[in-house]
């Protein structure tokens, strides 16, 4: 890594622009392809996809069963697949069992259903501590779990990607699938929050 005269690297935004120029002027990449990727992850591939999966599972028991048995295929039924979603395993959170997902080695995350990971998921403190003191970490993040809740941390060390099916909140029995979708948050699908009734 080269440095400037003051001992630090050049500003990262400038280095990014430099790399884009170097590769573009040699025809090695197409800026339009870059624009397409950026727009796709800004607008199409995000946690709304996962919310649709969860709302379907909450309202269709047969879909829920398929989702828990063959996550990748059930998710693809709703049209979601792609990079970082080669094999997705869905685990259910209940009143007594709680799953929470981390990637201690990098920041692996199920892109097709949740989009790119949020800043807290990529933070070293989250990556380091979730596998050592999850109850404390969850509490710092605003989720207090009862003492009798069994916690399982899912460390994403291979290409397997984990998605949490959150518990459907009480008081939502009359809501339709479409009405449930906006209640489902990214945080609940990673396991650092619960879904709240409206």
């Amino acid at each position, binding site marked *: 890594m080269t440095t400037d005269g003051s001992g630090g690297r050049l500003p990262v935004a400038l280095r990014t622009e430099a790399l884009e120029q170097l590769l573009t002027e040699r025809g090695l990449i197409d800026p339009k392809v*870059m624009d397409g990727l950026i727009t796709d992850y800004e607008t199409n591939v995000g946690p709304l996809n996962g919310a649709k999966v969860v709302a379907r599972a909450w309202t269709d028991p047969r879909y829920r069963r398929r989702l828990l048995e063959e996550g990748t295929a059930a998710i693809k039924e709703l049209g979601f697949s792609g990079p970082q979603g080669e094999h997705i395993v869905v685990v259910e959170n209940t009143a007594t069992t709680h799953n929470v997902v981390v990637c*201690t080695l990098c920041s692996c995350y199920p892109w097709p259903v949740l989009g790119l990971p949020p800043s807290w998921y990529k933070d070293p403190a989250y990556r380091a501590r979730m596998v050592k003191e999850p109850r404390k970490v969850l509490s710092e993040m605003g989720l207090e779990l009862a003492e009798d809740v069994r916690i399982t941390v899912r460390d994403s060390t291979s290409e397997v990607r984990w998605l949490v099916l959150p518990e459907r909140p009480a008081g939502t029995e009359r809501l339709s699938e479409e009405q449930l979708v906006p209640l489902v948050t990214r945080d609940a699908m990673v396991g650092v929050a619960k879904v709240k009734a409206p």
Partner: protein
Amino acid sequence: MEGIADMGGTEGWGPVHPPQGGEPVFEEPWQGRAFALTLLSIRVSGQNVDAFRHAQERLDPAAYLDDGYFGRWLNAAELMLTDSAILAPSAIDARARNLHGDHVEEPPIPEPAKPDYAPTAEGSLRAVDVPPAFAVGERVRAKNTSPPGHTRLPGYVRGHTGIVELIQPSALLPDTNAHFLGENPQHVYSVRFDSRQLWGTGAEPFAVTVELFESYLETTS
């Protein structure tokens, strides 16, 4: 390899950052550019996603941490591109200086030296023609090894015993694929470790599952 990237259980990172609503996917425009550039650089450099993860692992702590997640991606992209001699080692900095108004000479374009590598199929899932060595419910130990190159065996489980919870689809082995030494498909196991086995009797009670390739594991009997 030992390094900054293997963070599980390491100390000194301070409190976590609670989620904030409405966080944009890319907080600054360069982050989106770095994201797309890095994905494309994996292909341009003739490498693969495991080599990309290994490039991140090889960054020094400052290059890994200082500019956050997408800064680390950009630095890893530079490493892949210079390793494959698509770019000279000083090319990005020289161009960045010139963009900044300096007038420095840029290095010549090197003769590309991409790895002798082609995947046998899309993605990472690969068939294995021998049955799994371990069964669901079986006690297994994560080997206490320190591979010098890329591995997906986290340091915090090495030498510890767990139970096979699930057998996942077999997949190519990142340890060799990252170094273009072959795909070596293996069975993959979700192994459940008890927190007190990992961290001692004072630990919070919980379990952690880790996906481990067959060659990372040994029997306990």
